[in-house]
């Protein structure tokens, strides 16, 4: 398995609170991604990063921000969590730029916003 660690694995929070999810990789891959998976929607891209301090929005970026201050860490922040952000969040990495053929995914973070 690619060295990708997502933390926390599970989190329950209340509406309106800030939440930060962390993705840590030991592969030294340049490209990192945050996806969310919801029933009936499959995987949708939230934000991605092409390198340190180089990030961009994906398909469903509203309500989310990201930061990449080090190659190995990609943080996803929900500034004020809402119930619609209850989801499973996956981090993915790649050594090649888009169009990239293969992403390596972490095991996911289950987030529940009550």
């Amino acid at each position, binding site marked *: 398995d690619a060295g*990708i660690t997502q933390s926390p694995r599970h989190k329950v929070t209340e509406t309106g609170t800030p939440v930060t999810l962390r993705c840590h990789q030991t592969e030294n891959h340049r490209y990192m*991604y945050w*996806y969310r998976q919801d029933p*009936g*929607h*499959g*995987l*949708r*891209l939230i934000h*991605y990063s092409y390198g340190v301090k180089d990030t961009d929005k*994906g*398909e469903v970026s509203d309500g989310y921000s990201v930061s990449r201050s080090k190659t190995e860490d990609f943080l996803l922040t929900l500034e004020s969590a809402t119930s619609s952000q209850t989801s499973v969040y*996956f981090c*993915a990495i790649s050594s090649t*730029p*888009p*169009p*990239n*053929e*293969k*992403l*390596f*995914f*972490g*095991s*996911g973070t289950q987030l529940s916003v009550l």
Partner: protein
Amino acid sequence: DQQVKQNSPSLSVQEGRISILNCDYTNSMFDYFLWYKKYPAEGPTFLISISSIKDKNEDGRFTVFLNKSAKHLSLHIVPSQPGDSAVYFCAAMGRNGGSQGNLIFGKGTKLSVKP
């Protein structure tokens, strides 16, 4: 509007038989297609891919067929095994980069292979 569609949420197959998972796409700029497999509580893992210059790609028990004129692809698993029980995601991208260079996923099909 969904650009990658997997219209069957679930599929049940007997062990040893063929599993056929289908995927349709609407964006004519897509020219590379992938299948990912996902077990519960794990992240998706890459399974097989196909470029638009081909109509078939095979890897062991897994074969992907592409029909560009119909904007349709299918994943065949022969013979199916209980360990193949998982959710299968179809994904597509365009090789000319930009936002099309990022993978667009379908909703997934849950395959159950019965012993």
